[in-house]
């Protein structure tokens, strides 16, 4: 029995002792998080923490309460259970309690193997510093900034209905820039393994992009065709996930999605593919590859047990701690790349600005913009997913299939579903890259994307 499963069993036993008729579920996770951060080409913040947390949800006399705590020095598990049980007694009846996952063989249903690399799980500060050193050394003297991160997690879920599952995962990520006085160039990657983080190669990419972005020109606001590089595409995908493919938003008619309808261009196929992270959610539901959009046709939202019960479907394994208000959203989005590069020769294969797989998308564009990154995007209307934000880390003007000059950052206000609507997408790139998202530990995987129109409302200086 794992240490986490042992703790979960202890908690359930304490619940049975105090409230024999209560339905209870416990999620216990031991985490390691270490992040080596650098700026002005030196490591200025270098942190690590670890600990074990326990999450308990219990349903007793028709009422539901959640408690969480770290396994630490100041309170016993018995106090923790008693406090959560007391809270449940003081709350109103919960009419939409979805019940617990049953005891059927959850282990057998788990998606593949644990997403775990032992070396990454146990990575040292020196291991991360070595990646940073390589990135900084590759920068040819340009200032650099960013991070190298490793995480490890071992977890267990158990409930009073007899289900118990365990799992483990590791992640590694690098997200960093090289800087000139007038431009930044970015390189990012995420994986299960730290050994996939090639600091020197990533540094070279960032430097090349930064140098190619110097002395940008100002373009007037307006509608432009754009090639979004993978990082920019991922911002679109995650926003669609939060506001559209969110089971609670669908339940409350706040989502734009309509399962069964062709809401996207036929080249768009979107899945949630749990290749990073734990293989089950906080309710013990196995995660699995889930089609969200197939050939432009919307398939489903993602669900936890509560939204699934309300819509009379099954949970898709997307329950998260503290997720009751926000609702379940996709955690591992993957936009399927084109099976092969679109036709057309590229004149930019030898340029370092974009990945070679992006080059055909540029080559096919008469006039438009190549955008590396979208930044500080915020929703103006969640129903239509109209977002505002800015470009960041590089924009280039495309003319006659060639990159002709760097452009100053632009502000946009754009409906994301409209940008991917039927007929709105010109092409999908042929190589998907897994990238850490700005906030939290989310990742997503995407190729570049060429779309017909993006609404830029002004340049970043006014």
């Amino acid at each position, binding site marked *: 029995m794992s240490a986490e499963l042992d703790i979960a069993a202890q908690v359930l036993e304490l619940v049975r002792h105090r409230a024999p008729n209560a339905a209870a579920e416990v999620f216990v996770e031991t985490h390691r998080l270490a992040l080596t951060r650098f700026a002005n080409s030196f490591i200025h*913040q*270098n942190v690590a*923490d670890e600990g074990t947390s326990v999450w308990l949800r219990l349903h007793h006399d028709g009422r539901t309460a959640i408690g969480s705590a770290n396994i630490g020095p100041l309170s016993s598990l018995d106090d923790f259970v008693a406090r959560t049980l007391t809270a449940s007694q003081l709350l109103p009846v919960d009419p939409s309690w979805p019940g617990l996952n049953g005891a059927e063989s959850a282990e057998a249903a788990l998606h593949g193997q644990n997403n775990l690399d032992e070396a990454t799980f146990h990575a040292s*500060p020196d291991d991360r510093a070595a990646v*940073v050193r390589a990135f900084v050394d590759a920068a040819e003297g340009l200032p650099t900034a960013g991070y190298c991160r490793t995480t490890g997690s071992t977890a267990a879920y158990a409930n009073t209905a007899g289900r118990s599952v365990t799992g483990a995962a590791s992640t590694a990520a690098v997200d960093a820039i090289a800087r000139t006085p007038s431009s930044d160039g970015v390189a990012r990657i995420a994986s299960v393994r730290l050994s996939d983080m090639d600091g020197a190669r990533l540094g070279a990419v960032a430097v090349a992009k930064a140098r190619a972005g110097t002395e940008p020109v100002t373009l007037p606001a307006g509608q432009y065709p754009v090639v979004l590089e993978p990082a920019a595409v991922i911002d679109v995908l995650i926003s669609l996930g939060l506001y559209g493919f969110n089971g609670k938003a669908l339940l409350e008619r706040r989502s734009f999605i309509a399962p069964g309808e062709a809401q996207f261009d036929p080249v768009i196929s979107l899945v949630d593919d749990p290749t990073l992270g734990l293989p089950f959610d906080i309710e013990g539901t196995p995660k699995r590859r889930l089609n969200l959009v197939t050939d432009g046709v919307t398939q489903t939202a993602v669900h936890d047990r509560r939204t699934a019960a309300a819509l009379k479907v099954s949970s898709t394994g997307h329950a998260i701690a503290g997720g009751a208000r926000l609702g379940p959203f996709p955690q591992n989005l993957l936009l399927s790349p084109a099976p092969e590069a679109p036709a057309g020769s590229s004149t930019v294969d030898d340029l370092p600005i974009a990945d070679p797989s992006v080059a055909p998308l540029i080559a096919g564009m008469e006039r438009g913009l190549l955008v590396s990154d979208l930044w*500080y995007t915020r929703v*103006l209307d969640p129903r239509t997913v109209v977002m505002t934000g*800015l470009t960041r880390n590089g924009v280039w003007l495309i003319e006659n299939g060639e990159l002709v000059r760097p452009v100053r950052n632009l502000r946009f206000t754009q409906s994301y579903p409209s940008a991917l609507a039927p007929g709105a997408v010109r092409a999908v790139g042929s190589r998907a890259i897994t990238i850490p998202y700005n906030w939290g530990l989310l990742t997503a995987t995407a190729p570049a994307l060429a779309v017909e129109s993006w609404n830029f409302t002004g340049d970043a200086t006014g």
Partner: protein
Amino acid sequence: MSFFEVADAAVAAAIEAGARYADARVMHRRYESMSVRNTEVEDLTQTEDAGIGVRALVGSSWGFHALPDLTEAGARRAGRAATEIARASARVPGPPLELVEVEVRVDSWANPCRIDPLSVSLSEKGDLLVETTRLMVEHGADIAEASYSIWDARIWFTSSAGHRIEQHIRKCGAGSSATAIGEHETQRRSSPRQYGTAGWELVEDLDLIGSAPQLASEARALLTAPPCPEGTTTLILGSEQMALQIHESVGHAVELDRILGWEAAFAGTSWLDLSQLGNLQYGSPLMNITADPTIPGALGSFGYDDEGTPAAPRDIVRDGIWVGVLAGRDSAAVAGLDYAGSVRSDGWARLPMVRMTNVGLLPGPHSLEEMIAETSEGVFMETNRSWSIDDKRLNFQFGCEIGWEIRNGKRGRMLRNPTYTGIGPVFWRSMDMLGGADELIVWGTPNCGKGQPSQIGHTGHPAVPARFTNVRVGVRG
């Protein structure tokens, strides 16, 4: 073993392992929140944790390690690990570093708290939220939400310089919102979301129930209100939106770590250059901004920051001129400044970093009523709905929940989807009217994200209504 002794053990272990400076924070935190949606309790969360976070400085390189283990052995392990991490940092070292001097204090501090929020029964708190949402649904809301949050933290801080500071900081706040769902869009109206370093008396004064009917009817009315027209006009902002404006376009811009480039890859830098400190015209002469962590009850108040620097007010913008920054002991030293005091973390497991305290406007000579009366054509906007600003904190676009047309000195039609956009210093220099002391509200922002790993900061923002000229409004997709 007392918690001071636990922290001392960690500091001692870090120094024995080779650090030239170390500090440690033992923290015991409790958090409670409840959210109610359409009269049903959708979430009650009660969490409790405790642990120790240790900083160690080796040469010019920092290391930080945190553990949920308050035994002597655990503390010593955390201290040694912090020094080990600092040694790894030295593989990519920075320039020589000396920390700004700070008075070494032995002290304790607690914020005023008349009604302990955690002592109020869950049923009483739940009844308040349920009744608030019931009234909103009754008055036309499709989705009615109400929530509160409570934070209770005890902190024991020691350092190798001799600090020994205990703090007990209790915070709480609440808010509600009504959402109306139309055929093509949703509209929301929110109560003032107010948070502070205070007891439950803060929530009792909010009158969530009293404001519920109006919010619901306004949300419903917004669905059919005309959209905010597009153009350049005179803009009046209510004080809650002014708090957001201050937070995003002044507070973050004057964080010294951003100015120095330490946040360049993520949160971003700042349009401000230290060579301009003391000379730059940030805004109109009406603009006076202070950072003051001593304001009683404000969300960004404390006795000492997380480096042991005592709380003290500081001018940031005086008569429109930029004169101050938010700094820590290391960033101030690098910048050649002699003050720190704005370094905080969101818990024992996170590294303290430069954060806002209570950054706000000193009141001016006008009133909201006068601003409207003296505006021939313009828009009045209130309550933030969305916020986006560039990585230099220069170009912003903010959306509000509700707007009103102003014509010939009178408030006219309600406007939906009001947005405005601008460039920070241009916008602030256009401020020509500013609300008075009787309209001052100290707002609290409990969700300020910064740092990697991500941290959630709590900041305060004294604000009054203000008027701005030649502002672009009505931007949409």
